[in-house]
């Protein structure tokens, strides 16, 4: 053993300290909080009451289902667009595909708040102008009702995430040996056959990674939601993260909000374990 015990501790203790202080301890306190009626100042233990009330709270249930619906739609769209982008930019390796890569990825550099403002301008001002110029009612009044608000967040999120997911698909597409594809071409395989019988099976692990990355990030979405619709109109586009934030820091029902936070944690954990099980199964 080259590293002695006290040296080993010196290497790892700072990390242990940060993880315990910032994540583990707050998490444990949080579990306790979720069984109290804390308002930030006083708190007393009330058992499972928060959870019982939560499951009858129509605002919570609505935001929860909205989050599920949002995650479902955006996961499909992001992966579809990301995969198509990856296929486009891996066709050749020239200046055009390189600049396409850059352009597709660029939205991912911008933070959620700024993205929300950019799209708020597009959905309100630019869409209004399109509606007026071409007499298209479709472009009228975006973000002013719950359904255009919902699709607005979806569009924003697809714009932000597709380039990111594209990179994952690219790295798996590039790992496919060139001569496999060349052999298929020599055998007379069509482009569609190459896609479905060679590329698609090789992409299976990329699908698992991308699906769960997008799922986790859409479940936790907050800033885009805040800057684009701020949950409006009438809390109809408020997703679960924003629900937790507003309940805790606007209404000061911290124990109650923490119970919702625990439910969010359980959802993310269940999803992650399903992913782990799936990828183990394939490898095993």
């Amino acid at each position: 053993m080259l590293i002695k015990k006290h040296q080993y501790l010196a290497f790892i203790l700072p990390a242990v300290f940060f993880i315990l202080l910032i994540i583990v301890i707050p998490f444990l306190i949080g579990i306790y909080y979720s069984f109290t009626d804390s308002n930030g100042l006083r708190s007393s233990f009330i058992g499972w009451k928060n959870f019982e009330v939560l499951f009858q709270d129509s605002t919570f249930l609505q935001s929860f289902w909205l989050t599920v619906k949002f995650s479902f739609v955006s996961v499909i769209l992001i992966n579809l667009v990301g995969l198509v982008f990856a296929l486009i930019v891996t066709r050749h390796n020239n200046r055009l595909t390189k600049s396409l890569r850059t352009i597709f990825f660029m939205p991912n550099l911008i933070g959620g708040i700024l993205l929300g403002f950019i799209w708020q301008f597009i959905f309100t001002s630019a869409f209004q102008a399109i509606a007026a110029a071409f007499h298209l009612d479709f472009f009228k009044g975006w973000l002013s009702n719950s359904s255009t608000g919902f699709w607005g967040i979806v569009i924003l999120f697809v714009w932000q995430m597709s380039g990111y997911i594209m990179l994952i698909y690219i790295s798996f597409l590039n790992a496919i040996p060139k001569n496999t594809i060349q052999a298929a071409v020599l055998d007379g395989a069509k482009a569609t056959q190459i896609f479905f019988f060679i590329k698609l099976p090789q992409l299976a692990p990329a699908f698992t990674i991308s699906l769960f990355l997008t799922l986790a990030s859409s479940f936790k979405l907050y800033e885009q939601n805040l800057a684009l619709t701020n949950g409006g109109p009438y809390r109809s586009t408020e997703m679960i993260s924003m629900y937790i934030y507003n309940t805790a820091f606007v209404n000061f029902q911290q124990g109650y909000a923490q119970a919702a936070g625990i439910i969010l944690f359980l959802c993310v954990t269940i999803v992650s374990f399903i992913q782990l099980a799936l990828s183990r199964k394939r490898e095993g």
Partner: protein
Amino acid sequence: MKKSTKILLGFLFGIIALFWFYPFIIVIINALKGKRGIFQNPLWFTRDFTFSNFKTAYQALDFTSSFFNSLAITVASVIVITLVSAAAAYALSRVKGPFSSILYYLCAGTMLIPFQSIMIPLLSLFGKVNFLNRTSLVIMNTGLSVSLSIILFYGAFQGVSKTLDEAAALDGAYPFKTFVYIIFPAVSPMTGTVVILNAMKIWNDYLLPSLVVNKDGMYTIPLKMYSFFGETNSQWQLALAGLVLSVVPIIILFLLLQKQVMTSVTEGAIK
């Protein structure tokens, strides 16, 4: 493939790319207009052309101060994260034992916890001892980022042969010296990845800073943009000029480090 299909496909891809890029263009175009020009036609340039929005927005955003706040918080956090997680990952990769596996699983486990599930107790913990400022923000950023960074570094250190450690030890170097001068420099591509991933995340973060440093003199760019946006209600030309100012530094940095950024992002996702 026929030449005509090829041209058609190229044309199609061009249209898609243009469409994807258009939101950036629209922001820049309208940042260069007065209120009237935006009202007339937000889709393209109008006669109404001015640079003055940038000056107004720069002052209203207190841009120098918010920029340096963002920069200081990001740089400090990234340095602490990199050092703390590289050191821990090195020890994990060299010493096998129950303690190492516990820490490894602790990292993997804490990565599952969404920030929203711990933010309330975290805030009340730091609020109780009245420790909500830029320093505590750096500490929180570190705690929230070390898990993933340790796992990334761990993979890289495993790829560095232990004979290097042994050779250094024979030459009389202490583990600390071996780490700093030999092993850590050997994983510099991974260091780049860890730095870029964390820098992007922390620079753009809004939720945590809004809870910790939401006060005068401590505003970061996203925080200031949010409050500025509320104040400039319906003055899009100023809001958009502010957006351009906030986004330009990131885009320039990205264009300079493009390849490295894309590799880092991919690695961070796949590992």
